[in-house]
């Protein structure tokens, strides 16, 4: 691996968490993470952040909406 190994590890971050790395890239990331606190913390942060974004961004359907959707049942293709 040439260049800055942490920069390389950063490049692999998203695909690592999405599980879309090749086996070879996966090993490359794992090997680096095993010895690098800096990158390990950032991977951990990213993983937590994704979960957090998801839970905070999800908003339940407003209560009245389902009734409005029910009313649309049976709509005619020509209407």
């Amino acid at each position: 691996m040439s260049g800055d190994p942490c920069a390389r590890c950063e490049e692999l971050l998203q695909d690592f968490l999405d599980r879309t790395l090749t086996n070879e890239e996966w090993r490359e990331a794992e090997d680096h993470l095993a010895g690098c606190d800096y990158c390990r913390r950032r991977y951990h942060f990213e993983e937590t952040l994704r979960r957090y974004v998801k839970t905070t961004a999800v908003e339940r359907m407003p209560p009245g909406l389902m009734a409005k959707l029910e009313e649309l049942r049976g709509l005619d293709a020509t209407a």
Partner: protein
Amino acid sequence: MQAPVGQRYGRPVSEPEPATEALRIATEARDRARFEEEALGLADQVYRVARRLVGSREEAEDLVQETYARAFRSWRSYSQGTNMRAWLLRILTNLNVDRGRRIQRTPQMQALEETDYYLANKMASAAGEAALDQDVVVERLSQDSVVNALSEIQPQFREVVVLVDIGDFTYADAAQILDIPIGTVMSRLHRGRRALKQKLAEEAIT
């Protein structure tokens, strides 16, 4: 051995049962009702995506209603057994694009994107390197800041991030919904997430 189908009930195939038309109508009504039930069962998940694609709850409600109106009208074009959630979202994202064209929002220029560690680095310099080990560090980001940051990403990146990271769609589903290649989904997703982190860094850490 069984008799050929047409002869099984003692009449040729070409001569339909008098009740056939009534049966066809009843079957269609049943299929349609099942389709509607299944679609309505997905409403919460459809709303979840809609809400993060548009700016307000009212707009999201309108978009979901338009989507269901169109879906119920064109229920025959849905192929049974395929991914109905993706089918509904395809209608929704198309309607949303049309809506975007109508509103003619001025596209905001995206600033140069930072790399993937950008937000973590900012958090580390604000809270200390070791704080990144603890999950509480992300909780410094308020719910509002997450929602605002999402709404500020360019629409073409936002829709992919919302579908995959909030709607739990696979890359393949997102590609089908948006009618773009999988490679484009991946590159927009990567850029969108980086843009989100950059926005979060701007909004939440001062």
